[in-house]
Structure formats: structure tokens, C-alpha cells
């Protein structure tokens, strides 16, 4: 404050320089994917590579939707992600509500287990999960995969929603109960409407996690026609020669939902990123 305006600007110069450098670091890899996806095949493989596409072309997008299983992959992913999200929301809402509003025996043990499972990666159990699913005939089943994803999203969602419910005053519920509303009625008609932003955050998270996941999908889905969008993208690389134009176009399709969430639901995203990790 004692310094002049010019001197302050000078002092902030390294800060702006750093932010600019980090901004470039963040967007350049994504930009390079986008730029490549809009180049015609010839330009993708021209040396040296062009920083900007000389001619914008949609041929890669047309190719991935007509010549590959990408569209099918998108549909499969939508089925898996939406069913995993709905199931997780239902289960986590009930449990989180019980954790905030009830005292019962075994609550501490159960909550400790949920926290432990949040910290311990589901990857550890992937071998028996594969064996279990093959015994139960749940391999090659999109809903089976949605069930497996519960191990990934339930612990996070339960804590997220519990934090949210704790912020809703219990008096609101008591008033409704005096008016003759049942417990389930209170949850359905009083608490859930108030918790809508929290539910939105939880839903977005469950969806993104399921949409992005590929290790379990790779392990539990062996049939070509059931592959999720991430697995279809992987297939571009198994071919003898990588068609980078098509691969990058498929990647843009694969990250589309996430980009939409960043543009339209950024507030929920940031709340959610922190919701599971900060409190417990």
C-alpha cells in the first residue's frame, strides 16, 4: 500500500507469469487433442506438425461414428453411468440420512467401514471381484458393472450427503412430523427438496466417476459390443497403426460430458471435489 501502482504491478509480474505458464501447461495437452481431431488425415501425419489446423475438417468425427463402435460405446456408457448413479444416490441418501438423524447400535462401526473403504482403493479387491462376478454370471453385464461401481462411488457419496444433511436444521423436520408426517414422508417431502444442491453434486460425481472408469470395465466386460466409451477409445490403439485423427476425435467425444459439467455445473463440481475429502 505504500508502494506506487507501477511498483505493485512490477511485483505482481512473476505471479502473472507463473499463472500464464500454468495455464498453458493445463490447456495445451487438451488443445493438442482438439486441434488434431479437426485436422484432415493428411495434415495429422504431416511433418512438422501444424500448430493450428490449416483446414477444419469433420472427417475424423464422421469416421469414428460410422466406422467404429464409438456410438455403441457412448450408449453403453450412458446405461452404466446412469444406472450406477441412480442406484448410488438411492443407497447413499438413505444411509447418509440415517447417519445424520438416528442413533443406533453399530453406527460407529459402519461409518468407520465406509471411511476405510473410501481410503482403500477398490483396485485391491479387483481379483476376487472378477472371480465373484464370473461365478455369479455377472461378467459381460452392464448392470453388473454398475453394481461393481458402487464400491467406487458409495463411500464418497455417503460422506458427501451426510455433510449436506448435517447443514439442514432438524427443526424443519420436527415441525413436519408434528403435523403428522412419517419419517419416510419427511425425508421425501421436506429434507430431499432442501438437499437438492447436495444431491445434484452427488449425482454429478457418481456419473463422472462411472463415465471415466475403465479398469473395472476392462476386467468385467469381455464382449466387444458391451464396451464402454473409454474401452472403445482404448481399441484405437490396439490396431497396428494408431489413427491419431480418429483417436483424438473419439477422445473429444469421450470427454464431452465432463466438459459440459465444467461449463454448466462448475459450482457443484468444486463443492463435490472437496465434499468427500475435507470432512469425515
Amino acid at each position, binding site marked *: 500500500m505504500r508502494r506506487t501502482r507501477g511498483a505493485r504491478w512490477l511485483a505482481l509480474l512473476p505471479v502473472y507469469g507463473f499463472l500464464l505458464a500454468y495455464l498453458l501447461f493445463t490447456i495445451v495437452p*487438451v488443445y493438442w487433442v482438439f486441434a488434431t481431431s479437426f485436422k484432415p488425415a493428411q495434415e495429422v501425419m504431416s511433418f512438422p*506438425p501444424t500448430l493450428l489446423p490449416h483446414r477444419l475438417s469433420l472427417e475424423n468425427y464422421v469416421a469414428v461414428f460410422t466406422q467404429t463402435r464409438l456410438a455403441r460405446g457412448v450408449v453403453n456408457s450412458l446405461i452404466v453411468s446412469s444406472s450406477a448413479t441412480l442406484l448410488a444416490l*438411492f443407497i447413499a441418501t438413505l444411509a447418509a440420512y440415517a447417519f445424520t438423524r438416528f442413533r443406533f447400535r453399530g453406527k460407529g462401526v*459402519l461409518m468407520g467401514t465406509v471411511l476405510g473403504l473410501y481410503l482403500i482403493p477398490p483396485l*485391491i479387491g479387483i481379483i476376487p471381484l472378477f*472371480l465373484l462376478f464370473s461365478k455369479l454370471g455377472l461378467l459381460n453385464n452392464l448392470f453388473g458393472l454398475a453394481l461393481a461401481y458402487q464400491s467406487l462411488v458409495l463411500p464418497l457419496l455417503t460422506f458427501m450427503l451426510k455433510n449436506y444433511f448435517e447443514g439442514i436444521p432438524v427443526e424443519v423436520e420436527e415441525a413436519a412430523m408434528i403435523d403428522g408426517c412419517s419419517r419416510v414422508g419427511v425425508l421425501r417431502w421436506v429434507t430431499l427438496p432442501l438437499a437438492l444442491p447436495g444431491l445434484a453434486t452427488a449425482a454429478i460425481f457418481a456419473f463422472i466417476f462411472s463415465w471415466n472408469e475403465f479398469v473395472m470395465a476392462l476386467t468385467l466386460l469381455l464382449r466387444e459390443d458391451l464396451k464402454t466409451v473409454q474401452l472403445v477409445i482404448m481399441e484405437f490403439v490396439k490396431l497396428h497403426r494408431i489413427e491419431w485423427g480418429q483417436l483424438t476425435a473419439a477422445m473429444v467425444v469421450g470427454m464431452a460430458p465432463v466438459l459440459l459439467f465444467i461449463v454448466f455445473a*462448475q459450482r457443484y463440481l468444486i463443492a463435490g471435489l472437496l465434499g468427500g475429502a475435507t470432512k469425515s
Partner: protein
Amino acid sequence: MPYAFVAPLALALLSVSVLPLLWDVWVSLQDLRTTNILRGAPFVGLGNYVKLFHDPLFYHSLRVSLYFVVGSILGQFMLGLLIALIFHRMPAVARWLRPVFILPWILSAIIVGYSWIWMYNYNFGLINLALRAVGLHPVRWLNDISMAIWALVIANVWRGTPFTMLFLEAALKNIPPELYEAAYVDGASGWQVFRHITFPMLRPAVAINLILVTMWTFNLFDTILVMTQGGPANATLTTAMYMYKIAFRYGLFGYGAAIALVMLAINGAMALLYVRTVGKAAVS
């Protein structure tokens, strides 16, 4: 009544999380492979564990994991802390940059992996394009034994920094502004304020963040599976990657389960540390 509410959660977690973990113990005591999966595997007791402790590749994988974890955390933490401090002081700038900065964190491992493979591409990658532009020799990033692990670390720092940034930014918001006001009234300099107020107040959050990120990085292998699959010549074979490869590439489920359980023990130790640190943070 409460039990009806928690029953679905208990049931779901029991079947897809707890049961597989317990079964892992049983699998790790057998010589279960793809070849004997149908007719039943021989029970070998602690044989898999004995084998593990004599397996040079396992120790190699622990060393690779150490490089990967330490490298990732150094980069991710320093960048994340720096950005969080800047964002905290410049909310207007933060509002514009934050959504862009968090992008890598929510992209899938497949997208992250291939984006970076494309960046590192020898002929057509942007990084070698830049190296050539300034007159340096291009590098075979992912095919070079000494370079590959650091190439993965850079990609992982790219992906992980947003989490540390958001986490520490939230922690900075929780420091009561009165503390700063009092310090400035007493004539403290910017550095003194950071040294005596910001940093001590931030310490619990820093500890929690470091533990979480350490665990996640140690267990991470999805981007590695996409980018190098542990190669070249095992140069990027982390313990998590080794476990996956043993089980699903070589079909040695019993041996893979033993590695998974050793990883679980390491995670358990970290988790205990986490719980104790969170507990302490709640008290102070």
C-alpha cells in the same frame, strides 16, 4: 427403523467391497491361476508371500513406486500450494482460472493417458516440436528407460495438482480473517504473516492432503496402464501396475492377490495416519 435406512448400503458394500477384500485373503493363500481356475487351485499357505519377498521385481516395483510417489507429490504439492495462495489473494483472477485449472482432475485416465502420449509423440508431439524449435534434440519420452518414469510423473502432476489446489484453497478460507488483521495492525510483513499465521494454520490440512495424495498416487495405475504398461524394460512398473500385470496379464491370481494384500497393509498404515491426523486437526 435406522437399520432399514442403512441396510442397502451395508448390503452393497458387503457384496462389492468387503467380501472381495476378505476373499482376497483366501485367494492369496492358493496358487490360483487361469489354468486351474475351474478345477480348483492347490492351497499353498503363505507360499505366495514367501515368493513375493524373494521376488526382485517386487522390490524393483517398490522403488519405482517411490520415485513415482515422491516425484508426483513434490510437483503437485508445490504447484497446488502456490496456486492456492495466489487464488486466495486474488479472487477475481481465481474465478476465471479455477474452472480451467480443475479440468485435468476430472478427465478420465484414458483421456489423460492418450493426451500425454500424443504430447510426447516423437515425430508429431508438441513437446518435441518445441524442443526442435529451440534447436534441441527430440526425446523418445515414453520409450526411454531413464525418462519414462518422469514423463509419467509430469502427466500425473498435471492431473493431480487441481485437487491439492482446491483442498488448500478451502483450508485457507477457513483461517479466521481477524488473525491477519491483528498481524497487520501490529506491523507484520507479508512474509512474517505467512510464516507465523498462514503456514501454522494450514499445517493440518497440508498433512491430510499429503497423506491422501500419497495413498492415491501409490495405488494409481490407470494412467500407467494406458501410457507404458510398466515398460520400457519395467522402468515404470510400480507396485500397483505389477499387481495388475501379474493377475490379468500372466493369469496368476493367487500371487496377484498376495501383492494386493501387501499394498493393503501399506494403505492401512497410511489410513491410520490419516485418521490420527484428522483427529488431531479436529481437536486443535
